[in-house]
């Protein structure tokens, strides 16, 4: 039945196109006048007749015209309409002159490109210029502050760690928050690929992509844009398009180099040995305990682990093409050492992009990226092997060396200097991502494309701890392979009939990925000089596992516009996934959108104020399939977690749920897009996103034997406004100044959750001890005991009970809602100035209205303990009546609970940051030309995170924290996260 339907549909389409009379065929190519690049989608019509067509991606067209046709009309929004007489050879090539730069832009959308001016999708695009030369470990960092509605938080200073990215707020609670990344049509694998280092943050999915290879990153936001990705679209989609060469262009070679240094933006407070010994004994005496005797030694651990970080990056690329072939070749070597010891990362990557027109009707191409990342890792924050965490906690009288200068074992809070000097902790990653395609123009208006893609990841983690820490030493090694392949077949249809423009896309894709993991571990080595597990006497870990998933999809998109004024688009996608339960194997998603280009109406066409004005609206659905591979089955697992006394065991691990399926987000969007006075561009969108069937780990009473079950239940809403304003303040040949501001406002609200009442009768889901999703509040609501302060009269620490009365008793029963980790708005503000050869770029980013929890303060502000170092803030303790002190009276019974989780650790997370500022000088061509080799040369200096404006009472190193990477349930929490780095780099760009 399915087959028949499709066959009819296709036949119908073909029949429709072949009824037309064929007298003469006119061919030609349309390019832009300024850059010579082909213009796709240009409407080509016979003047006074009904026949017409549009140009393809290569700018070529072919039109059947009556024998008497004499003049062709070329219209393309944003370009001056041209009428050209048909010559005897029936070939008409045209160079269209642009009306306004903005309007000629093409945007990358799912499975294709669209004219920005005529698109009804809501997308944000970040082009290469916005991030050129900015040192960064991964391209996703360039989304920070650059695209309205994209909230990005760098999660950890550990090189290579994943960041938290949310597009238009979180659409999922437990199903992961990362958008779907698609590189040249290949959706990337998105596992975490990182062996546990003590933190919640996985590996950055874009670590292997060289920012210099990227032409543009497009963030798909509304349903009209993400709907075509069906069950994977609800977190938003980021399309990455890599660079290509140009037809008929001399090969351009570029070399870019930069070198830089980094240091932490800020550190936590900590006591010296003398301060610590004095404080602990004052505290002990006050509590009636005998004074402790401490060793006379002292050591500044923080100072010893912080260093000046160094970055060096080399980038070489070549791009060009002849009449039929385009190519781009890029190579990058990047080496970075962080500002704490032991945190190094080196990346080597190469890219080859190529396409060739075999004939006017057949085009083939390949995009391929191969890269290797080698990193020397450190523990992630919540780990006493993490240099900075450990150095804050290490007792300041403990020294790393003995009297002979040899490293010593310092116990649970281990000697991190020795760890970094003696142990191995490496993580290597190899990834090849690419696709090969063939495109056929099978009939005049039809184009068929078949595309085969892969994303193969291989990781290798290796650790080795020497005899000093564990007698005999331990070793561990693991390998993971996640190999994906997919095939995508699409059929494209484009047709212009007088004032009617039709577009159609019909597609099929099948995608599957297999993940294999293997680990070995052992203990007892004859010598520290034996690095591999094979030398261990006792095997402690032998593990291997494999899992796979598959997704099969059909999709279609139809678009229609009338006179380039009234725009319509409809799309649908059907996804079948191996991850979904047997009762919900297939999901259907759709989106409808419409636009009105008001500036094309006669009453505005000649306006001197409004150059362009478009209204759009869209509604549709998308989903999230990150629910785990076999979460729907009741399972019994074996392995070392189930074995006993050398015999195989089995333990129940999962509650069954045959109805388990995707999460579904329905989104409504209205937008306005305008250009005023040819100076200001304004884009504003209002949206509401409602996610239902939220995947929840519904907590079970432990008396069931399970902690939770995964069920589709719950609803959440995000409402917001994305705003982008750009202004070309001055636009003269020698002096240019442009300003751009983007802001995303978002309000998140939980509408319903599985039944799990808090004392106020609201359902909630706990993300951490401090944070939970609560119905009526946001997904990331801090739920804490309110800390009131130190009573100046008594010196006791006081908290508030639920009803707001002061108490000296700390109790979790007094927890209340105290704020949200989700900012009210985030955004960026950029100024670009160029005067003759000098260019200046100043970029600020900001977040406002959120709270962050600096969890590490629970340790460093622990009054009574003698087990780890403390903050110097505690020295300001209550001594006499009237003192307005930070810490309580040392003899107060409340001192024992002072550090308990409360709003004491909760801080205002708002900040404004001078994210990057760069100053460059382009050497005049008159001088360059003398060299005979160079075609261009630029030198620059660039600073990152130079200034951070934050709340004056902020007691953490950095308000930009998100220790748990891509987790949606825990946001804005840090244990001892590495603060962001302040960097200064110097670089050159050379063109040959």
């Amino acid at each position, binding site marked *: 039945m399915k087959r028949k339907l499709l066959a009819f549909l296709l036949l119908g389409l073909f029949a429709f196109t072949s009824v037309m009379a064929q007298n003469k065929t006119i061919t030609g190519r349309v390019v832009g006048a300024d850059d010579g690049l082909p213009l796709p989608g240009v409407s080509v019509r016979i003047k006074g007749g009904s026949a017409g067509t549009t140009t393809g991606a290569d700018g070529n067209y072919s039109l059947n015209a009556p024998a008497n046709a004499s003049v062709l009309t070329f219209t393309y929004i944003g370009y001056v309409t041209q009428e050209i007489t048909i010559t005897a050879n029936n070939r008409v090539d045209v160079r269209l002159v642009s009306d306004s730069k903005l309007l000629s832009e093409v945007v990358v959308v799912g499975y294709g490109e669209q004219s920005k001016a005529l698109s009804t999708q809501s997308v944000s695009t970040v082009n290469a210029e916005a991030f050129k030369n900015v040192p960064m470990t991964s391209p996703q960092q360039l989304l920070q502050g650059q695209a309205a509605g994209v909230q990005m938080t760098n999660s950890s200073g550990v090189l290579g760690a994943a960041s938290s990215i949310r597009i238009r707020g979180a659409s999922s609670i437990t199903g992961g928050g990362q958008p779907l990344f698609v590189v040249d049509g290949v959706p990337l694998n998105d596992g975490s690929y990182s062996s546990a280092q003590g933190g919640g943050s996985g590996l950055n999915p874009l670590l292997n992509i060289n920012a210099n290879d990227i032409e543009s990153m497009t963030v798909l936001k509304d349903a009209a844009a993400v709907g075509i990705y069906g069950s994977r679209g609800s977190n938003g989609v980021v399309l990455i398009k890599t660079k290509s060469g140009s037809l008929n262009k001399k090969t351009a070679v570029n070399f870019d180099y930069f070198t830089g240094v980094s240091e932490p933006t800020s550190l936590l407070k900590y006591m010296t040995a003398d301060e610590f010994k004095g404080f602990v004994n004052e505290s002990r005496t006050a509590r009636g305990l005998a004074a402790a005797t401490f060793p006379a030694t002292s050591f500044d651990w923080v100072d010893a682990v912080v260093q000046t970080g160094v970055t060096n990056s080399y980038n070489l690329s070549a791009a060009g093409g002849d009449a039929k072939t385009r190519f781009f070749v890029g190579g990058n070597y990047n080496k970075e050492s962080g500002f704490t010891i032991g945190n190094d990362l080196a990346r080597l990557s190469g890219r080859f992009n190529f396409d060739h027109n075999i004939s006017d009707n057949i085009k083939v191409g390949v995009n391929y990226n191969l890269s290797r990342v080698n990193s020397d890792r450190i523990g992630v924050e919540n780990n006493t092997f993490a240099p900075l965490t450990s150095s804050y906690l290490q007792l300041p009288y403990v020294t790393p060396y003995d009297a002979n200068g040899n490293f010593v074992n310092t116990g649970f809070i281990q000697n991190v200097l020795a760890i970094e000097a003696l142990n191995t902790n490496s993580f290597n990653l190899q990834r090849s991502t690419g696709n090969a395609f063939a495109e*056929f123009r099978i009939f005049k208006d039809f184009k068929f494309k078949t595309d085969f893609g892969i994303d193969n990841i291989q990781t290798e983690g290796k650790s080795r701890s020497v005899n000093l820490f564990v007698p005999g030493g331990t070793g561990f090694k693991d390998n993971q392979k996640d190999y994906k392949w997919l095939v995508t*077949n699409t059929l494209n249809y484009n047709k212009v009939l007088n004032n009617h423009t039709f577009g159609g896309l019909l597609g099929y894709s099948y995608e599957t990925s297999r993940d294999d993991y293997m680990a070995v571990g052992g203990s007892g080595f004859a010598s520290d000089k034996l690095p591999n597990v094979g030398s261990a006497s006792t095997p402690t870990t032998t593990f291997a596992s494999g899992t796979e998933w598959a997704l099969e999809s059909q999709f279609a998109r139809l678009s229609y516009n009338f006179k380039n004024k009234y725009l319509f688009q409809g799309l649908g996608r059907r996804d079948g996934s191996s991850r979904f339960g047997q009762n919900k194997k297939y999901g259907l998603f759709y989106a409808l959108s419409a636009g009105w280009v008001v500036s094309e109406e006669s009453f505005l066409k000649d306006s001197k104020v409004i150059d362009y004005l478009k209204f759009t609206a869209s509604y549709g659905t998308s989903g999230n399939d990150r629910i785990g591979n076999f979460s729907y089955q009741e399972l019994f697992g074996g392995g070392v977690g189930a074995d006993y006394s050398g015999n195989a065991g089995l333990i129940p691990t999962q509650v069954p749920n045959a109805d388990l399926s995707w999460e579904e987000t329905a989104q409504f969007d209205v937008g306005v897009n305008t250009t005023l006075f040819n100076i200001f561009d304004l884009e504003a969108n209002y949206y509401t996103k409602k996610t239902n069937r939220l995947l929840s780990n519904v907590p079970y009473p432990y008396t*069931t034997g399970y902690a939770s079950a995964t069920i589709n239940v719950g609803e959440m809403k995000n409402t917001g406004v994305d705003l982008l304003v750009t202004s070309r303040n001055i636009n003269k040949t020698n002096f240019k100044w442009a300003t751009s501001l983007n802001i995303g406002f978002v309000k998140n609200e939980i509408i319903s959750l599985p039944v799990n009442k808090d004392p106020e009768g609201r359902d909630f889901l706990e993300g951490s001890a401090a944070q939970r999703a609560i119905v009526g509040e946001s997904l990331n609501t801090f739920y804490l005991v309110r800390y009131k302060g130190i009573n100046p009269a008594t010196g006791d620490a006081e908290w508030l009970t639920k009803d707001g009365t002061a108490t000296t008793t700390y109790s979790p029963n007094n927890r209340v809602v105290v704020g949200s980790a989700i900012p009210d708005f985030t955004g960026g503000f950029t100024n670009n100035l160029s005067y003759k050869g000098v260019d200046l770029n100043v970029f600020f980013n900001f977040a406002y209205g959120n709270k962050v929890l600096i969890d590490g303060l629970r340790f460093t502000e622990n009054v009574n303990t003698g087990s780890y170092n403390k903050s110097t803030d505690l020295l300001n303790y209550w001594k006499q009546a009237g003192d307005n002190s930070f810490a309580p009276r040392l003899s107060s019974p409340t001192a024992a609970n002072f550090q308990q989780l409360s709003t004491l650790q909760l801080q205002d997370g708002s900040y404004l940051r001078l994210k990057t500022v760069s100053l460059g000088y382009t050497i005049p061509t008159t001088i360059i030309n003398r060299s005979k080799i160079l075609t261009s040369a630029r030198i620059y200096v660039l600073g990152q995170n130079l200034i951070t404006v934050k709340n004056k009472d902020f007691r953490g190193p950095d308000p930009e924290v998100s220790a748990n990477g891509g987790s949606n349930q825990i946001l804005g929490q840090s244990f001892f996260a590495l603060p962001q780095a302040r960097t200064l780099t110097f670089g050159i760009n050379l063109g040959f």
Partner: protein
Amino acid sequence: MKNKLFIYSITGALLFSFASCEKKLDLQPEQSLSADVAFNSKETATSALLGVYSSLQTLEVFGSQPQIVADYQADNVLFVGSFPTLQEITNYNVISSNQTIETIWQSHYRAILRANKIIAKVPQVVDASYTDAQKKQAVAEAKFLRALTYFQLSNLFSQPFQVSNGSNLSVPLVLESFEGEISFPARATLNDVQNQIKKDLTEAIVDLPASYSLAADTRGRATKGAAQALLSRLHLYRNDWANAETLARQVLASPLYVLAANYAFYDANTPEDVFSIQNSATDNGRTGAGGWASYYQPAAKGGRGDAPFSAALVAAYNEEPGDKRFTSLNAMGSAADGIARPFTLKFPDAINNTDNSPVIRTTEVVLNLAEAIAEQKGINMESIDLINKLRARAGLPSWTLVTFLTKAAFIDAILNERRKELAFEGHRRMDLLRKGKPLRTTGPEASKATFGGNLTILPIPFREIDQNKLLVQNPGY
């Protein structure tokens, strides 16, 4: 013509791909079995039973943590570590959201529910090679493990029998296999819980074997002797001296259980072991959270050095200098606070955490018997002879009938021996409480550590009270 060929081939390709949907999406897990497979053969059912043992083996059940928590409350062990949740326990400053306590509760019920599944499912397994006797034994083993787990759980979360003759609230009693329907059980009384433990053990004794073909199984799996010994302990905890005596005698009548000659029996599967959970390098290695030695060994040995001897315990051993239970079982090491302190040598392997968990030892049964007789008969020669075996092993002079003047002093002395024999094995807290004694007599926490004191038992985890409205919190939290 060329165009047509394209159209046909491409339409064909597209259509073909639409056809074969179902197969491609029908993938199965590779690391797990579905529930119906798990109970369809003798082999898988036996593995599921071993999975219950494995559940008891975890850090949070018999892998040392509940035992350490109990010891941190009492007076044998000094806390010098950095974990705030353990610091709260040792300081009698526990809040009900204490994560360590929550995980202990969770892990106990997980083990219990897995045992329940065996008890419910094994009798229904259809497999000709699985005999009824074998099925009965599997059920009996599961009952023993369930009883053992409930016993420890009720000791931690409820006041001892001696406070109100067992009428006080204990823990929820869940005896059914969980099949998807969530229930919200209220807390049972201590008598209910202990009667169920008694019932499980009594039934298990009938079907359990006396021994297995392998020593590791005789010492590491449920046996008749182990069930009898545990029942003896239960009676002791309920002041039921006569039954405690009877069951202890039954255990010691078996040639399988003999006092060791010295202290080399730890982790050795000797006749000293009545029931010891068998740990291997893969059980609590890199993947686990540690084990006995990770607390009880200093950093130089690979542990954390969190739990050295308390000054009180050192003083107790020094009452009689030369006590081998101290001299041969301690070594100085740098504790977590960087200061040299004495650590026990009972659990030496902090590298792989392979030390077996000594749950029931012959020594304990001997002590049970000596105490049960003394409680009934006062100062008596049989008890003295039993204790003298232990004292001889420790290199100490024998007691005689005239060593003690009163029955109370005699019983206190037996308890003192019990303290020194079983130190660091998780017994001290209950041995004090069931005798109506405070957990600590000195230090700022002494006022809270009194017999019957609210804070001598752990709070019901806050999360559970959030979940199950029928659960009543312990007073004082």
